[in-house]
């Protein structure tokens, strides 16, 4: 079967909206109902965060959602149990995102096999080194039709961007500015210069822009240079209070372009 991420980017070249949220937040069993609500609201792709006690690249909002999710009992095993019904309820691509240590303890091979069997399409492990992926896991992930997605930042050198573009599966995750998740975001003009530079590199892989993206205006600003955006912190803030379904619909409504 064709990977859902690849299919999405073939079908849609602009305005892709991917939403990140922490599995097991605000309640342990919210993972799938939220996935369903997001798909119904018109989201193109989901990134399910696997909570970690020490999320180095995340700001306070995702840190807190991770803490609460862990307290709720969320872990990779519980997430996989929840995902057993994933493909009966959700058709859009799903990416699992989490730090390396929990995956390492679960066992990378067992993790990848189980994720693939459950209908997961891609994985993001921000602290997994490129070399280690290439040497130990690339073959495994490719065999399982799982896309391993890598990040680039405004500080990533041109040579390294090209290497990452070649290794990254499905798309390239471009961090919009030097910051952790949920910061006030980049100066729009600086972001534009960076995205223009990326666009001019002709990377042959779609680029999604994340970190500090939270409004409709952000989406429109990215439109000329990239295939779409990833929204995380702003959505987690939105579902932290009130009815999660209602909050999801109105949040996504406000993001429509």
């Amino acid at each position, binding site marked *: 079967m064709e990977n859902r991420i690849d299919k999405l980017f073939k079908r849609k070249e602009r305005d892709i909206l991917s939403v990140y949220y922490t599995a097991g937040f605000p309640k342990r069993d919210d993972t799938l109902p939220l996935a369903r609500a997001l798909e119904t609201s018109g989201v193109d792709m989901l990134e399910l965060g696997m909570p*970690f*006690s*020490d*999320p*180095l*690249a995340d*700001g*306070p909002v995702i*840190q807190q959602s991770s*803490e609460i999710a*862990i307290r709720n009992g969320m*872990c*990779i*095993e519980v997430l996989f149990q929840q995902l057993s019904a994933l493909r009966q309820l959700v058709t859009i691509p799903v990416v699992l995102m989490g*730090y*390396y*240590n*929990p*995956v*390492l*303890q*679960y066992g990378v091979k067992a993790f990848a096999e189980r994720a693939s069997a459950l209908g997961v399409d891609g994985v993001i492990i*921000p*602290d*997994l*080194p490129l070399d*280690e992926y290439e040497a130990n896991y690339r073959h495994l992930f490719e065999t399982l039709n799982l896309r391993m997605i*890598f*990040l*680039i*930042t405004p*500080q*990533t*050198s041109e040579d*390294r961007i090209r290497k*990452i573009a070649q290794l990254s599966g499905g798309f390239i995750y471009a*961090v919009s500015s*030097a*910051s*952790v998740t949920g*910061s006030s975001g980049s100066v729009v003009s600086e972001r534009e210069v960076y995205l223009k530079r990326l666009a001019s590199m002709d990377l042959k892989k779609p680029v999604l822009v994340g970190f500090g993206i939270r409004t409709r205006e952000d989406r429109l600003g990215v439109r000329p240079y990239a295939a779409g955006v990833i929204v995380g912190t702003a959505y987690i803030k939105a579902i932290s209070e009130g009815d999660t379904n209602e909050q999801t619909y109105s949040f996504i409504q406000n993001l429509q372009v």
Partner: protein
Amino acid sequence: MTSTYHINENGFYGAFGGAYIPELLYANVEILRLNYKRIIHSDEFQQVFRQLLKDYVGRPSPLYYAERLSKHYNARVFLKREDLNHTGAHKINNTIGQILMAQRLGKTRIIAETGAGQHGVATATVCALMGLPCVVYMGAVDIERQAPNVERMRLLGAEVRAVHSGSKTLKDATNEAIRDWISHPEDTHYIIGSVVGPHPYPDMVALFQSVISEEIKSQLEEQAGKVHPDYVVACVGGGSNAAGAFYHFMDVPQVKLIAAEAAGKGIDSGHTAATVAIGAPGIIHGSKTLLMQDKDGQITEPYSISAGLDYPGIGPLHAHLAQTGRAMVIPVTDTEALEAGYELCCMEGIIPALESAHALACLKKLELNPDDTIVVNLSGRGDKDLETYINNLPHGK
């Protein structure tokens, strides 16, 4: 000579080490990785570094033959007096080295993490010395219990930022410093306080601390007529003082390396920081090493009476030394450390830091011969721990 115990070209000590960092940190760490050896080994750097260690830190620190302690343990016990350094601990050896490194990399702003505040004070000190702005991240809980060191840092001109995430202690202060570095990739250097973090930090910090064992060798030769002791004993939290004390002896098999780790209330008590005893391999703060974690790979909370050993990981060098059996790791409880601390006070007139007291407690646990020569690294002085010592005094004293 090829060594099994030094870092390989990929930044690994055997199975441990490496740089497990998000791309957001890659450029920062890469600049350091590409330049640190060249800079450290340049004549210019060495000249300035050595001069500051001598005139500002007060090195060489004495190697003191502890006569009464020797009589008591029926062996020849030497204390390497890192407690006599400026700012009262070995930490300054590293911060002097790293501030010089930062200057040579063109960095204009310094950040650091601190637990007990010793590394924070040592960083604030060198920043004052060099006129660089300094931000120290410190867990809110530690700020509360280490108030005098907070005041010291502020007096030295540093900004102390309270960390309210997670357990509000050293691990979280380190996370927050790393997040700051992610947000300031151009102008900032992160002075890590121990032999932890992504490559090249463990190797760089060990190099700066290696002056300890370099001095031990020459001092021992002068005082005891031999270059190699039978034992070198040091405490290990992250492990920087132990790395420095072991460094020039790692490849000399007849020197037994003893690492004292903090057992807290006992290794099975659930209140411990004995990483080697109860930890498992994993990733913490950018390095593959042994760490305390639950079955899901979440990092667990350490506990020790000594704030400087209260860390859920251990430097990758020490994980390697422990795993290969090159170093013997001995868990020491709070009570054993306190007893060893009181003993040194009364027997030698030296109040040791609680961290160093863990190393001293090993004297009781080793089977020593009368002609054995033991060097205990007295990594810091106990002024900061007075309250703990006094509150825990046994009845009748």
